[in-house]
């Protein structure tokens, strides 16, 4: 119990620190939201109009930084994320809501499949290390992981989408369809998710495999593994119940962090596939210096990462009894 409460205390401090950094960081960048419209509207706005927009966005208020900070914290406490300037006057919560579920969908599916595939292959190649399987699988997944993601994604779009026309290359579902609970719609969503998810999985499998493989190999050299083999247990049982279970710990930590970062979106995926998501949203928010939207998105990422870390800490308690030591 003391362990959990000390962890909780740590997370509260970490949350406050992140919120403060979330507030300060965007404001350190030069420029302001109204002026950044200049480059977007390229000359179609007169200086008087830019000035008017500045008033509307509330940029010309002369509140001190500390006053803005306290307003920010009190608004957060009330669950008010403010009004976005890039989507003015849509509230930040509405903007994020439009995109976040697609991000979670794509991110969760890609992470889950990538993790399971990577970990399973890692177990396999660690068990059969230095054989043909290991010599083929390990280098090829590492190679895929080293390929620049945007190149792989664009190549997939070009070959599979445009040239061969096997899969759709943009959007999260066919824009002619109206979202509904029908099987056609769900099937369409799944079809549109294949290329984006597949490219993400292709570049991430190698990372999971490598970590799993190396920890598994060091676990397999332990004495109790030799003892289990001597006792005549089946190789599958040894590999999974004794080998993998112990080797999972470091991989779980990375998985936890990756789960937290699902909500940060996959920027390059969203650009290449025009997939609705918060990654590109954050990118355009930063470009347009949309402070409320940036803060809102960073808040969600912070909560996601911290929450996932807390979860990992709890899972550790289950996986590794030695952690429960007071």
């Amino acid at each position, binding site marked *: 119990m003391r362990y959990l409460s000390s962890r909780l205390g740590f997370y509260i401090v970490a949350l406050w620190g992140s919120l403060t950094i979330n507030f300060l960081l965007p404001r350190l960048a030069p420029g302001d939201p109204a002026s950044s419209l200049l*480059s977007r509207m390229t000359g*179609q706005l007169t200086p008087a109009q830019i000035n008017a927009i500045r008033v509307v966005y509330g940029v010309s208020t002369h509140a001190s930084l500390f006053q803005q900070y306290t307003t920010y914290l009190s608004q957060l406490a009330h669950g008010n994320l403010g009004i976005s300037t890039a989507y003015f006057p849509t509230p930040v919560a509405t903007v994020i809501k439009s995109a976040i579920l697609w991000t979670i969908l794509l991110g969760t599916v890609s992470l889950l499949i990538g993790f399971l595939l990577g970990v399973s292959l890692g177990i396999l190649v660690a068990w059969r290390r230095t054989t043909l399987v290991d010599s083929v699988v390990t280098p090829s997944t590492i190679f895929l992981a080293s390929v620049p993601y945007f190149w792989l994604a664009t190549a997939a*779009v070009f070959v599979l989408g445009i040239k061969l026309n096997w899969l759709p290359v943009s*959007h999260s579902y066919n824009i*002619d369809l*109206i979202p509904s609970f029908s099987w056609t719609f769900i099937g369409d969503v799944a079809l549109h998710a294949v290329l984006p998810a597949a490219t993400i999985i292709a570049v991430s499998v190698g990372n999971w495999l490598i970590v799993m493989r190396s920890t598994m190999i060091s676990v397999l050299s332990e004495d109790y593994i030799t003892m289990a083999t001597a006792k005549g247990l089946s190789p599958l049982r040894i590999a999974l119940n004794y080998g993998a279970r112990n080797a999972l710990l470091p991989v779980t930590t990375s998985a936890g962090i990756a789960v937290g970062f699902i909500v940060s979106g996959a920027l390059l995926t969203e650009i*290449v596939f025009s997939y*609705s998501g918060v990654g590109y949203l954050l990118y355009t928010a930063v470009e347009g210096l949309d402070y409320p939207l940036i803060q809102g998105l960073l808040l969600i990422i912070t909560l996601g990462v911290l929450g996932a870390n807390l979860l990992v800490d709890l899972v550790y308690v289950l996986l590794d009894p030695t952690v429960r030591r007071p």
Partner: protein
Amino acid sequence: MRSKRLIAACVPLLTGGAILVAGCSSGAQSGQSGHSGSSASSAILQMGGEGEATIYTRNFNPFSPNSDLGTTTAIYEPLVVYTPTNGKYTPWLATSWTWGPNSTSLTFNLRHGVKWSDGKPFTAADVTDTFQILKKYFGGGGFPYVSSVVAVSPYVVKFSFSQPTSPALGQVGQQVIAPQHIWSKIASPAKYTNPNPVGTGPFTQITSFAPQSYVLGKNPQYWQPGKPYFAGIRYPAYSTQSENEAIVQGTVDWADAYIPNVQKTYIDKNPKDFHYWFAKTGGTIPLVLNTTMAPFNDVTVRKAISMAINREANVESVYGSYTAIGNSTGLSPTSSFFDPAVAKADDWTTQNVAKANAMLTAAGYKMGSNGVRLTPSGKPMSYTLETGSTSSDYVQSAQNVAADVKKIGINLMVTPKAWNTVISDVELGHFQIAHMFEQLGTTPFTFYDFYMGCSNIVPIGKLALQNFGRYCDPKATKLLAQFAAANTPSAQQQIADALQTEFARVAPVIPLFTQPDWGEFNTARFTGFPSASNPYATGQTRYPGAVIVLTTVKPVG
């Protein structure tokens, strides 16, 4: 194996996720399923996106600078529409207008018989209410010179200005009008997203809305009989990359994207249906020099730098043959005010490296030992040339310019930065040379006031919204005041000629080329788009002239 079972478990996860997503983020209603049916009257025009957002929020507030595409071009309409290709002002919600003495007032006669999409009639009260809302909630909407807007009678509106402002016709005239019977009841217009708009435009119904695309349907009460000729417009959200892909694949009917090598990349894929037209009607892209610092306060240096640049080669390498090179008037050759005589008379926009070298040496800028000149005070002439890193065309242009200017002994270091940083630098005056974007209005007043007017000079270190180079020309300022008072084309033309001559004399900024106005058109499903042979509008989808295109285009068959 364990993992196989878990992979199988993903399928319900995916389905569950899809259901959740569909339920929460759609907010869609009934209505036609969208894409063009066999009958022409159900045809839907497919637009390219803005290339900047992959999600839309339901925001049709006409006063917001960030409203969804179509708000100010299809749902709401202005009093007049300006067409850059022929310089004409087309009467739209107003049928005619008259200027008061000295351009201090402008009276519009409104069109009778126009109805809002909910059936109520359009009257002068709508116009006055619109400008009242702008003044009260939107910082004046960018018309600080408007002192009052009065409904003289139900169909006559009079604008009074605090100073002569003849360019106001294109400014207040192109402001979209919102219905008074709806907006006067809204407590906070600045915070209202207007999810179900009521407008006078050709497409006002929201047939369907989802974050990645929405469809605007026909206005049943539209004031032009028989128009529009098709059922609706679809706006999908695209990132820039996907937008170009969609255009090239033929799924888009009308877009205004920059496509490099357009003939090979786009036209050759389907020469029968794919067309493009890049009207040379954009503003002038300048090199802005900080004239508060030496040597840029010396007109000889400015003209010499300009003379070193090979504009034809620059435009060829950046845009192919899409656009016109800069000339010494600072205006685009397609502008109705352009005076070719002035452009011919001055030679500082024609490349002449020998003459530029001679000019600099004669003015006291001696050539140093390493090929870099020195100012009279002995400093080497080495400066930074900054531009936005995301505009690859400007970066390339800046590099071409730097290579040319090296030949006259001036070293320019091209420093691409994020646009926000560049804009902040030029606004505060913390720059040396910047490769900026256009500043365009319906009259040359905007351009000349922006770069030569004394009234808006802001010292270095304070935020300037115009005249980044801080160049004050008293003669031009006088001419600008005269221009603002003149409201007939002939009077304006005379003063515009004088302004062009003055610009050519003092060269406050260096014109590089005209920003092309992009336009791609797919005639497989629709015809009637503008083109070089029929320039009734530009190909731009986001500016007031788009409403003319939307009411001219017809479905095929």
